[in-house]
């Protein structure tokens, strides 16, 4: 595996509280140390390293609190995100409808260069709890209207489809990865005159 192609993806998880965001995270990352900071600073952070196409990808996952008192931190939290995951509870239509405002809120606060092309993924969680209250067709239609957002149905509890969903999230984010032209400091061939002036100044002036 090539050492060089290491990618780090910043992934934001959004959605109403109670839809199972944290359980999804715990299931995927299998990390005991979660829920440390959410109450105090408004987000928990997890990471997972996976391999996609011979590339080592680190997923830096930001599990943000839905609470209002942390709302103003959105700009800082969402800054530089590579992908945003919108989670709803398949048994609660309201949580699905709220995805619209979650998405809008995110786009406003993070102001990506190309909002139309920003990679989102929708996850309908808790399929283990019975027949979904929101039909697949509804979800499909909404996702299509928002630029063909891929969607997945998962059960964090039963560990269904979770890995697949996240792998797709990573792939989606990588697709949008562009190689920008690096621009750094000036590399110019200095003018001959510049140097001559220098000499004159040194010779002419006294000190």
């Amino acid at each position, binding site marked *: 595996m*090539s*050492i*060089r192609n290491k990618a780090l993806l910043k992934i934001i998880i959004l959605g109403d509280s109670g839809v199972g965001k944290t359980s999804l995270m715990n299931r995927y990352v299998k990390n005991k140390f979660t829920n440390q900071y959410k109450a105090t600073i408004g987000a928990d952070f997890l990471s997972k390293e996976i391999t996609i196409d011979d590339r080592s990808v680190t997923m830096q996952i930001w599990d943000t609190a839905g609470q209002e008192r942390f709302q103003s931190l959105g700009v800082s939290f969402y800054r530089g995100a590579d992908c945003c995951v919108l989670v709803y509870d398949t048994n609660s239509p309201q949580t699905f409808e709220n995805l619209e405002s979650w998405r809008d809120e995110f786009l406003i606060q993070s102001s990506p260069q190309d909002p139309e092309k920003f990679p989102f993924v929708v996850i309908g969680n808790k399929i283990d709890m019975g027949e979904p209250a929101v039909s697949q067709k509804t979800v499909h239609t909404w996702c299509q209207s928002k630029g063909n957002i891929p969607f997945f149905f998962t059960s964090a509890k039963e560990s269904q489809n979770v890995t697949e969903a996240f792998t797709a999230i990573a792939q989606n984010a990588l697709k949008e990865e562009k190689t920008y032209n*690096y621009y*750094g400091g000036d*590399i110019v061939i200095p003018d001959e005159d510049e140097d001559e002036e220098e000499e004159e100044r040194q010779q002419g002036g006294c000190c």
Partner: protein
Amino acid sequence: MQNQNVDMKIVLLGSSYVGKTCLVDRFINDRFDSSTQQTVGAAFLTKIINTNDNKLVLGIWDTAGQERFESMSKMYYRKANAAIICYDVTDYDSFKKLQYWVDEVRENEKNCVIYFCGTKIDLLEDESDRTVPMEEIEKYADKMQITLFETSSKLNKNVNNLFLKISHNFIKKKNQKLNSKKMGNKNSTINIKNGKNQPNDEKGICC
């Protein structure tokens, strides 16, 4: 501007981690260090080779493949006689990058002869390990009218051949020019009688 001690300037180009430094290390010092780190800046190395009674001082630029050095690279292949554009046979991205370098060199240094070097063939246990099939590479090299070499610095395969070939071609070209000058002189003496001035004509000259 040219350092008079160096007869021929060769520059190594290509993505980072393809093994440019190892290639030069093998050629000049006959050694291989697998923990060689990414080159920062560029190193200039010299080697004297003897071919067919010709003594040739090679000046070799081992450049950094890192993106941030790309704008600098013009400085290295300026007035270079040959450019070896390297790619790693197990890395597709490095192969894709070949076109970028070919364009760069051809645009800025038309007299520079380009060679392709596929490195790390020791990593191929069989042909299927290649990320790009051999036919495709050969086709591409033909299309670009570029000579293709494949090497292993680790196992010391084909490395000397590569540099010797480059040197031979250089000497050949140099001799051709000298001969054509001589021929040209003959022509011009003839033409002076006719009152015409013919430019050096390399077409009919064999070597």
